[in-house]
């Protein structure tokens, strides 16, 4: 199959460059893209919110750097952002042992790094050795650990690598996504000298930064732009056998303000825009025809925003908070607050309709795991009042809600000042809660200071936060929902589950982790969502849609709800207009 | 306002010696000229009312008046240089037949400097501190003449030489602060004359200079008048200056012309005010008590003794911090007996003021000793009080008279507020001020009145020795006489001792028991006034001669 496709590619023989390497094609295992076949050539310009901090895949953990690195480097197994499921990348194929612990990968043969050096299993072994090195503290390491133990990597032959997990792992192939394969020939010296964390910084010459991705670094102008050029050794071809990527150059301009990004997109300086706010989306809409771009609503994202009460039990020192926790711990109180919130108004005013009401942390954007059986929460002041009443609350003559002891119900809502939408939600919540007699006070705070309170000092009443799941698979969120999870936000550092429902959640989550069958996992996960919706440890609010835009003539533009909404398939993007002209 | 004054003016005008028609040969003529000032609180104050004046070609007209009479407004108004709150309310200014008030700004600019030039009162303030003298003169020249840079330089040098600078190159490169007061005034004159104006308006050009310099400048003006056939309007409060310079004199009182004519004509008028201006010493006769015989035997021990006092100043350069020593006092030795009045005279820069400040305790001598009689030495501060030259700067302009006078009491924490205000009234009466003005702000008083406030304040500190540091020289002569009278009166009542520092010799013999002459930081002579005026010491001689030149023949200078 592959061979015949290859043949057609050779017949096409479009580029001199290709014919130069034609001799090697015979052994090359190329991946054939199923996307629409496009026209090679042209340049694409996109904006970055900030400069990348590093080009080093071992240490980089900020979104921007990872975004660039993902264009320059490649992973063994890749999650297709559109289908949300895994597909082969550098790995041609793989097998999983029955018990789900052994993962054997067959590599594509004859691939070359962007500097022309060959790629084989040694590079894979090297890469994982680096990522798993304790001394390097690579952010990948923690993702490659299962139950606190690292996986084992062995080379079976030049084209086969075996990974052994310490225990069964439901989603084992997904962990390989965005774990870039490093060129051993360039980095091994640095690694042995213990300097690999210093390698590939911003001042490294571009030609020394080498990967297996569709593009390679051409130029970095500090503070200004990053220019990537086409990697001639890339390992994908289209259905017509044309070598991918189509684009000659992919340029990232550094445009630090979101408004400026919108302006530059509207002006045509950039041809793709990602992460539009609903406000800006709406403001741009009327310009679509005159400026020849198109805006896309890719549907609900994986970001869940929620109101959370402080349920930590180490708050004795803070009598103020401790006193209020007896309300917060009462599920009826949380349910009543949830019922008092007018989420539809949030969707309408904050997101101009481009958001969806949430009942659990799984958003409708998560096609595989969303539990459709759970009804979205309904706004009802009456129901809220009923619930309050049943929990022993009452109202005084001026309509203020009082607890059993006659104390007025008042609390503060911590909100990060850097997120406009959450601040707006806090403002609306205040007004909603006023309707049921609660005095809630929104306290904006610089984000690190706010995080410090939530994760560190636990000195807060309630907070509005948002978390964007990195992947659709539930595993990525176990840290939040397992009672011993590092980001079990509402109640950190629990020795044993504080409540029966937390205990049940722990059990179910633990079970799904080792369950390999999707249908069974799915059932378990539906149960998790039921518990969440009933107990409301987090009072879910809404999930915004992923809003992006691109020039009309950009082909294969398929925005996704997973990270890197727009450029995840940069290798397939092409200009419908003649090459060279954007 | 004063019908007598009017008739007098017209009478004089009619009796012009040459009998020429008034306007024919007039270079400048003011007719029915009035100026108002607008106060900040909306009140309108009239500075000049219906003034009639004319200056003929080649003539020097003296304008004589007390301070506050409106004579400075006159000089500014001629070139339309009144401050924004000043307004010409009526009249005409005709210069060579043209009405200056009708000219456009650019036409006016041609007259300024080239037709009519102005010399202002204070040369230190009239020159731009950040530009060289040469530059300031050249700018005037090039404002009116099309000359090349080199020509302008050449003309400037010539003018500076003419004005009496031996090395014009150095002067033209110098900045105002590098020149002495006399040099600055010369430079200002050079600036005024560079375009050969036909009329020079000089507004008190001498009053801020020391006597010797005054005489020199006066001589220069006389010379220039002869050489350049310059017309001049010379504004002053000192009639003595006019006697040798002015053909005619106009007397202004309170914004109105009081009289006009030659000095002789004026002095023969039966007008007490005019005569008071011309012969201020006649008033003195009334106020000054007869000079007392020196009374050496009041106490045996000298009240104040200076032994071998020396003082030098160090000036620093900001970058190098190199030090420059300027010797101000060198081995000064003298003593003062209680109840006596000692005058210290000398030209500016001779060290008089440093001496005063050393005695008053504002400066510490480098070497030597300033000692008081044993009985005073124990007394707390306030024994010595210094009265500054400029009462305006010695009183906080934000204070009321009562605040200022009570200040020593407040500082010493003496007396309750009630008592204080009573003492203030008492002191005000004593120095001849109306106690009902106690709550007026200091700047609302005239110069003479301010000096009285300063004296009252000094008295409030119950001093034994009063140092008068040029305290009178800024004042009009009659006022000087009045204040001297007051001081003598106070001396007899409070048994004060005076150290009177001055550069001019007015009233010296009437006032001082002894005179010390200083030059270059040293005492060159010490004598009673009577003997002093016969002195042959060059420093003393030059002071006496300058003083004689500046005063009308009738005015007492020497005994």
């Amino acid at each position, binding site marked *: 199959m592959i061979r015949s496709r290859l043949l057609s590619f050779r017949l096409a023989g479009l580029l001199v460059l290709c014919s130069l390497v034609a001799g090697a094609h015979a052994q090359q295992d190329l991946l054939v893209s199923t996307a629409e076949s496009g026209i090679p050539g042209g340049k694409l310009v996109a904006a970055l919110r900030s400069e990348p901090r590093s080009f080093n895949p071992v240490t980089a953990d900020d979104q921007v750097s990872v975004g660039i690195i993902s264009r320059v480097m490649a992973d063994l197994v890749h999650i297709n952002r559109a289908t949300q499921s895994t597909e082969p990348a550098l790995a041609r194929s793989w097998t999983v042992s029955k018990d789900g612990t052994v993962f054997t990968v067959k590599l594509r043969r004859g691939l070359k790094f962007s500097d022309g050096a060959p790629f084989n299993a040694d590079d894979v072994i090297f890469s994982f050795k680096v990522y798993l090195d304790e001394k390097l503290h690579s952010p990948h390491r923690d993702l490659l650990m299962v139950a606190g133990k690292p996986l084992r990597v062995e080379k079976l032959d030049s084209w086969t690598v075996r990974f052994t997990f310490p225990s069964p792992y439901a989603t084992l192939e997904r962990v390989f996504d965005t774990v870039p394969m490093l060129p051993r020939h360039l980095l091994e010296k640095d690694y042995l000298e213990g300097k690999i964390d210093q390698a590939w910084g911003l001042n490294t010459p571009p030609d020394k930064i080498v990967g297996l991705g569709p593009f390679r670094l051409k130029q970095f102008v500090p503070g200004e732009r990053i220019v990537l050029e086409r990697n001639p050794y890339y390992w994908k071809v289209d259905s017509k056998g044309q070598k991918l990527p189509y684009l000659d150059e992919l340029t990232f301009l550094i445009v630090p303000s979101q408004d400026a990004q919108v302006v530059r997109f509207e002006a045509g300086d950039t041809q793709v825009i990602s992460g539009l706010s609903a406000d800006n989306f709406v403001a741009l809409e009327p310009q679509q025809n005159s400026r020849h771009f198109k805006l896309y609503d890719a549907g609900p994202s994986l970001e869940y925003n929620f109101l959370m009460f402080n349920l930590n039990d180490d708050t004795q020192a803070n009598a103020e908070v401790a006193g209020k926790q007896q309300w917060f711990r009462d599920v009826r109180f949380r349910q009543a607050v949830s019922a008092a919130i007018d989420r539809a108004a949030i969707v309408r005013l904050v997101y101009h309709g481009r958001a969806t009401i949430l009942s659990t942390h799984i958003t409708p954007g998560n096609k595989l795991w969303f539990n459709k059986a759970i009804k979205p929460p309904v706004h009802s002041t009456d129901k809220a009042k009923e619930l309050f009443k049943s929990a022993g609350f009452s109202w005084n003559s001026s309509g203020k809600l009082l607890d059993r002891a006659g104390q007025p119900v008042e609390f503060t809502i911590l909100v990060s000042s850097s997120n406009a939408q959450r601040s707006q939600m806090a403002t*609306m919540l205040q007004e909603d809660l006023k309707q049921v007699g609660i005095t809630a006070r929104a306290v904006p705070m610089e984000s690190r200071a706010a995080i410090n309170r939530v994760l560190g000092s636990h000195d807060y009443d309630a907070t509005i936060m948002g978390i964007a799941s990195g992947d659709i698979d539930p595993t990525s969120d176990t840290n939040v929902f397992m009672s011993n999870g590092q980001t079990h936000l509402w109640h950190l550092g629990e020795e044993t589950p504080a409540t029966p429902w937390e205990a049940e959640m722990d059990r179910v989550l633990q079970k799904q982790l080792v369950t390999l069958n999707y249908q069974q996992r799915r059932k378990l996960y539906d149960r998790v969502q039921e518990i969440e919706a009933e107990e409301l440890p987090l009072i879910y609010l809404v999930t915004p849609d992923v809003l992006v835009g691109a020039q009309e003539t950009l082909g294969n533009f398929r925005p996704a709800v997973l990270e890197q909404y727009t450029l995840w398939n940069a290798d397939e993007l092409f200009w419908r207009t003649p090459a060279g002209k954007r | 306002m004063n019908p007598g004054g009017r008739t007098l003016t017209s009478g004089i005008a009619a009796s012009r010696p040459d009998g020429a028609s008034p306007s024919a040969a007039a270079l400048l003529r003011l007719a029915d000229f009035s100026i108002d000032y607008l106060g900040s609180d909306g009140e309108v104050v009239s500075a000049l009312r219906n003034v009639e004046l004319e200056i003929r070609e080649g003539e020097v007209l003296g304008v004589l008046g007390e301070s506050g009479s409106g004579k400075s407004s006159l000089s500014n108004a001629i070139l339309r240089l009144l401050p924004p709150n000043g307004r010409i309310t009526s009249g005409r200014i005709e210069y060579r037949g043209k009405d200056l008030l009708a000219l456009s700004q650019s036409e006016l600019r041609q007259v300024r400097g080239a037709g009519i030039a102005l010399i202002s009162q204070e040369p230190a303030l009239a020159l731009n501190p950040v530009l060289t003298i040469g530059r300031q003169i050249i700018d005037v020249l090039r404002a009116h003449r099309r000359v090349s840079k080199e020509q302008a330089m050449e003309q400037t040098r010539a003018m500076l030489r003419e004005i009496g600078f031996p090395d014009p190159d150095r002067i033209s490169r110098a900045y105002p602060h590098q020149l002495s007061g006399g040099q600055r005034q010369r430079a200002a004159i050079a600036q005024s004359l560079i375009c050969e104006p036909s009329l020079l308006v000089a507004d008190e050009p001498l009053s801020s200079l020391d006597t010797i310099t005054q005489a020199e400048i006066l001589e220069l003006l006389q010379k220039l008048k002869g050489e350049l056939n310059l017309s001049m309007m010379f504004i002053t409060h000192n009639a003595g200056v006019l006697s040798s310079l002015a053909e005619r004199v106009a007397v202004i009182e309170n914004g109105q012309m009081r009289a006009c004519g030659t000095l002789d004509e004026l002095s023969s008028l039966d007008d007490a005010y005019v005569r008071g201006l011309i012969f201020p010493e006649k008033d003195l006769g009334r106020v000054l008590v007869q000079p007392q015989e020196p009374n050496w035997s009041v106490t045996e021990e000298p009240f104040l003794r200076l032994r071998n006092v020396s003082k030098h100043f160090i000036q620093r350069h900001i970058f190098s911090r190199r030090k420059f020593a300027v010797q101000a006092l060198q081995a000064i030795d003298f003593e003062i007996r209680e109840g006596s009045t000692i005058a210290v005279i000398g030209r500016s820069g001779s060290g008089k003021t440093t001496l005063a400040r050393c005695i008053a305790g504002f400066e510490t001598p480098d070497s030597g000793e300033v000692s008081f009689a044993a009985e005073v030495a124990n007394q707390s501060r306030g024994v010595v009080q210094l009265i500054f030259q400029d009462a305006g700067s010695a009183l906080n302009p934000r204070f009321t008279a009562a605040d200022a006078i009570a200040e020593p009491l407040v500082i010493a924490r003496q007396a309750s507020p009630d008592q204080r205000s009573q003492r203030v009234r008492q002191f005000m009466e004593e120095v001849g001020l109306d106690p009902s003005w106690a709550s007026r702000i200091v700047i609302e008083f005239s110069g003479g009145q301010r000096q009285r406030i300063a004296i009252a304040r000094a008295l409030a500190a119950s001093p034994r020795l009063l140092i008068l540091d040029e305290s009178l020289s800024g004042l009009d002569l009659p006022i000087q006489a009045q204040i001297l009278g007051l001081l003598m009166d106070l001396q007899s009542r409070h048994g004060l001792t005076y150290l009177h520092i001055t550069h001019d010799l007015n009233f010296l013999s009437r006032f001082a028991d002894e005179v010390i002459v200083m030059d270059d930081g040293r005492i060159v002579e010490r004598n009673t006034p009577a003997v002093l005026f016969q002195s042959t010491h060059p420093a003393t001689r030059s002071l006496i001669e300058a003083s004689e030149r500046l005063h009308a023949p009738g005015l007492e200078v020497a005994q």
Partner: protein
Amino acid sequence: MRQRGKFMFVVSALVAVHLLVLFAGFVAPYDYATQDRDHAYVHPTRVHLMDCAGRFHLRPFVYVTSLQEGALSDYREDCSQPAPIRFFTRGDEYLLAGLIPSQLHLFGVASPARLYLLGTDEFGRDQFSRIVYGGEVSLFAGLLAALLALVIGVLAGSIAGASGGWVDETIMRVSELFMAVPWFYLLLALRAVLPLKMDPVSAFILVVGVIGVLNWGQPARLVRGVVLSGREQNFVQAARGFGAGRLYILKRHLLPMTFSLALTQMAVLVPRFILAEVLLSFLGLGIGEPFPSWGNMINEAQQYHVLVSYWWMILPALVPVPVFLGYHGLADALREKLQSQVRFRGDK
């Protein structure tokens, strides 16, 4: 005369503004926090004298408006529902001058009609009311901060200038330090120690006040210059001759000299501190919702989508301008007054 008139005009205008703001509850037709969620981003309500039928009415009136189906901020007037503007109406409760509870408003229209003189924001809150209420906080905070900066600046500057020597040197070095160090971390630390439940308005005023305290450097240096030259004045020397101590000289002679300078500084500092909030909210230190301040309202307008779609949201940026103009006018007029006094007297 003209000068006096100008002075009085400026003063009375400023007094009027401050009264307006002091009685915000009465002047504003709505509460600052009331959200009218069906009227988000309404453009300023049109006040009519002529009805749809072309008839003229003596009393101005407005029409009830409603959002067009599917539109974002396209509100249409309903000709069948006019509502006359009335004075001294009842509405949201407020505390008059912060003390007396009242429901009386200067003007308003009967529900369901709305009178939004300057439009509404994203929650349907009346911008006009918010501006009036916001002035309360902003002017107070701005004045307070400027006052603090000046008081400390004048004290430090005059002590430095009057003392000279090592005291002067030390104060000047410290003032340089204060001018060179960026204080955002201090503010973050400050916010961290304040209790969360602290009233947002007080917290905000505290933060702005601290900023005022930190900004004493520049006034201090300017004041020092004035004092340094004042120290050499004869009348100061004379006072010293009477045995006056430093404190006396400072109090009676030197401090009053700095008055005019302080005034000019005040006029510059008040606007600066009011606008400081724009940066403060960047650090999460702005005033908390729902309380309005001019700073956070200006901040609202500084967004692409707002500038493009909702022109009335920019009005809050223009509101402070006349007020600043007033302060500058006042400073200029007082300076002029002080100067002209001296000029007039000195020029006889």
